[in-house]
Structure formats: C-alpha cells, structure tokens
C-alpha cells in the first residue's frame, strides 16, 4: 500500500511540469479568450460589464455566418479530396509496392520544406503570369493566360490537398498494414472477387485510418490562415483571416475572441457528427 502511494506521487511529480506548462500556456489563455468574448470595446478599452453582444454579431451577421460555413465547406472538401487521392497510394504501398520503406520516404520528403513556401509555390504555379500559364502560352496551347486558376476556393482546395497529403497517406497506410492478410485469403477462398473482397474486408477494416486522416486534416485546415491569404483571394477567404483582421487590423479583441470560440465550436460539432456518421456507416457495411 505504502509502495503504491510512493510510486503514484512520483508519477504526478514527473507529470507536473508538463501540466504546469499546459495550464499556463493553454488553459489560462483560453480562459482569458472566453472571458474577453463576453466584453465589449470602445475607442480606449473594454467597457464595463458583461455582454453577449459579440455572439450576437457573430451569429447574427450573415456575412460572418457565410464565412463560417464556407470555411467548413472548403475544409470538408479538402479532407474529402485529400483522403480520396491518398487512399489508392496508401493501398498501393501497403499491398503492392516492392520497396515499401523507399516509397514512404519518397512520399514524405516534399513535406520537409517550409509550409509557407509549399503554399507559396502554388501561387507561383497557378498565378496569372505563373508557371502553368506561361508554360501553356509558350507551347501555344492557350492564347492568353487563364485567369480562373488562382484566387478562388478551388486554388485553396488544391493547395491544402497538397500541403496536407502526408496526414492522409500515413494514417491510412498504417490501418491498411494492420489488415490481417489471412482474412483476405479467406474471402477469396469463399468466392469473393477482388472488388467484393475490397468492399467487404479491406475498406471497412481501413476505415479507422480514413476517419482519423479526415479529422486530422479537417480540424486544422478550417483554421488555416496562410493558404487562403496567399491563394484564396476574396472568394476564398476563411474564418482565420477574419479573426486575424479583427485582432490585428480592426483591433476588436472581444469580437475576434467570440469568432474564435464560435468557429471552434462549429468545427468541433461538424467533426463529431462526421465521426459518428462514419462509424455508423462502417458498422452498417459489415
């Protein structure tokens, strides 16, 4: 009994420093964010008293609602596209590739460059005088540069699908690796064709990886600032850009705080719904 006591005190002692850092740098600041969102601001500082005015503005103004929904929509699309593009490659590496390790290294090397420059590279590629347009003009395939490549939600989706590819490939690969190969043999022996076998065994068993990847991409990309700022243009602006403007540009901290919290709540709700729906669908498919 005494021994157990001692050990668990040691454990809490070891855990302590990390928890202190998290409380000081995460819980405290988030609490302050929440408190600030219930204040309001005039020219010089916070006004007296508490108010729900900021939440009224965030939920009431249609341009804010539209921006929130657009952020969720763009990120949802990004997750879908990234996972759909990554699944076949993860499948290929897990089941068909000769040198798995080499493929995994080759697939992850592009992610060791600066995130900022990876995103910026797409601006160079898609731009009006960019790589695609100047290349196609040189080849006389187009007479004048295509204007629709950059500064729209499409550019944001392509760029993010590229920037976050590794976060889809690796979890899906791991879940495919875990699929028990004898189950596949059993299915074949019992007369399933390759497609049916894939749909009944491989796909359902790899769903944890797919769901994990989708969440791993959906949650952070809704808060992405760099990509919409560089390639999104007016039609591709997302919630993080608005939050940044409220804080740095307009200087309305309470409104920025309320936007951050509502944004996180909306993203959390969608992520939760998605996970529940995906789990139910996987169960039904089995």
């Amino acid at each position: 009994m005494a021994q157990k006591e001692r050990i668990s005190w040691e454990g809490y002692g070891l855990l302590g420093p990390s928890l202190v850092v998290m409380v000081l740098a995460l819980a405290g600041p988030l609490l302050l964010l929440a408190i600030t969102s219930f204040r309001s601001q005039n020219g010089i500082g916070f006004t007296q008293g508490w108010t729900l005015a900021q939440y009224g503005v965030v939920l009431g103004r249609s341009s804010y609602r539209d921006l929130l929904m657009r952020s969720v929509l763009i990120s949802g699309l990004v997750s879908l596209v990234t996972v759909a593009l990554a699944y076949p490659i993860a499948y290929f590496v897990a089941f068909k590739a000769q040198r798995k390790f080499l493929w995994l290294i080759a697939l992850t090397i592009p992610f060791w460059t600066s995130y900022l420059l990876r995103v910026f590279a797409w601006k160079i590629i898609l731009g009006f005088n960019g790589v695609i347009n100047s290349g196609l003009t040189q080849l006389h395939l187009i007479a004048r540069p295509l204007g629709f490549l950059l500064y729209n939600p499409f550019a944001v989706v392509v760029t993010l699908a590229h920037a976050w590819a590794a976060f889809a490939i690796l979890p899906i690969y791991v879940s495919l690796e875990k699929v028990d190969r004898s189950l596949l043999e059993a299915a074949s022996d019992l007369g399933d064709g390759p497609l049916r076998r894939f749909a009944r065994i491989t796909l359902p068993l790899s769903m944890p990886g797919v769901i994990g990847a989708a969440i791993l991409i959906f949650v952070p990309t809704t808060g992405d600032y760099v990509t919409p700022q560089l390639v999104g243009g007016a039609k591709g602006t997302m919630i993080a850009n608005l939050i940044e403007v409220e804080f740095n540009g307009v200087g309305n901290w309470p409104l920025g705080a309320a936007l951050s919290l509502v944004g996180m709540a909306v993203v959390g709700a969608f992520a939760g719904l998605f996970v529940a729906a995906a789990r139910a669908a996987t169960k039904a498919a089995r």
Partner: protein
Amino acid sequence: MKNRGLLIYALAYLAFLYVPVLVLPIFSFNNSEFIAFPLSGFTTRWYQSLMDDSAMQHALGNSLKVGSITALLATGLGLTAAKALTRNRLRGGSAALGFISLPLFIPDIVLGLSLLMVLGWVGLPLSLAAVVLGHLLICLPFALTVLIARFEGFDPNLEEASADLGEDGWMTFWRVTFPLMLPGISASLLLTFITSFDEFLVAYFLSGTEATLPVYIWGQLRFPERLPMVLALGAIILTVSVALVALAEYVRNLGIKKATVGA
C-alpha cells in the same frame, strides 16, 4: 494489369507532390526576376544576395535558437510525462494525456492569439521567449506521442532488474532508461525542432520585432523582386531537411542494429 494501373497512379501522385516543391530550386537558378517560363539562363546571383542579406541571417539565427530551445524543452517535458504515463499507473492519466494533446485540435491562430492576449494582460513584451512558449504547446503532443511509443516498446523489467541490482532511480535512468530511449529522444528532438523551425502563425503573432525565418519569409513575399531570393532560401531549406532526415534515418538504423546486438 490492375497493378500497373495502380503504379501509374502512384507515379502521377508523386509528380503532384514533387512538382510544386521542385519549382523552388528550378526558379532559384533562373536568371530573371520573373518566375515564369521560358527559363532565361543559369545564375547563382539569388544565392549571392541571400548570403549578403543580414536580416535573413538574423532571422535564421532566431529560428535556430527558438527551434533548439523548444526541441530540448518539449523533449525533456515529454520524457518525464511519458515516463509517468507509461510506468506509473496514474489515476487521471488518460485525462492528463488528453489535456496535453489538446493543442492538436486547436487551430494555431487561436493558440497564438490567446497567448498574445495573456501577454498583453500580464504586461509581458512580445519576444522570442513567447514564441518558444507557443511552440512548446504545439510540439509537446508530438514529443509525447513519439516518446510514449518508445517507452511502450521496451521491457520495463530491464528497469526493475537494474533497481534490484542496487542502482538508485537516477542511475537506473542514466544507465538503462536513457540509452534505451535514445532513438525515441532523437526522433522527438528532430520532429519538434523541425515543427518549431517551420511554424509561422504563432511566431507571427508573438515574435514582435525579432522575426523568425518564416516570419521574415512572409514579409518578403510582398515584394516581387525579392521572390527569386526567397525561392533560393526555400531550396536550401529543402536540401538541408532532406539531409537531416537521411541522417536521422541512418542514426535510427544504427540504433536498431545496436539494440539487436545487445539483446
């Protein structure tokens, strides 16, 4: 037949991943301020102007400082927390793990802004120390994941045997736990260093007048005539990171061989 289709897809996907990245080195050697085809001859002048840019070098120094301090702190904290979570059966252990992993699910912009507000509220100035604190939040979950996996990967009996043979806790740590954890520690150091070195948004809010490298790059993106130089910088970062990853992989393989010989 089906396999060939998959292989073609895999190669096309590789092209999708690599083409944007290869834009950096290609146009960094292009003798023109405009980043467009046709290429107009080979030059190293962008690399030359990079060497002469003292603001860039200052920012690089800042990023190296922030990255190494963050990596050491995150790995140190992660090591103690991972030991507690794997070796001591703690009440509330999984809640603590969830709490430490929370930054993974919070957008960087919210982490950065809420820290910015706290600094303003307490009256502390924006500084590289503030950036380290922000990066620590982002990096600790990564360090913890890597280190917990490593702790779970070796036999706790080895530690117990050391204790039974009369070593105290500290010596057991240095002579048994630490060497066995070394591959995990180096992986965590590398991962957290690179994450911090590459992080832009939190540093953008917290760095104040002392720009880190990504903050400096962000500032340069507004000036079209500076772009080729930025591309040269990107090409260098790419080369160095690939070299680092290769080195880490080499060290990891050494570790694996040693471990099997020892066992």
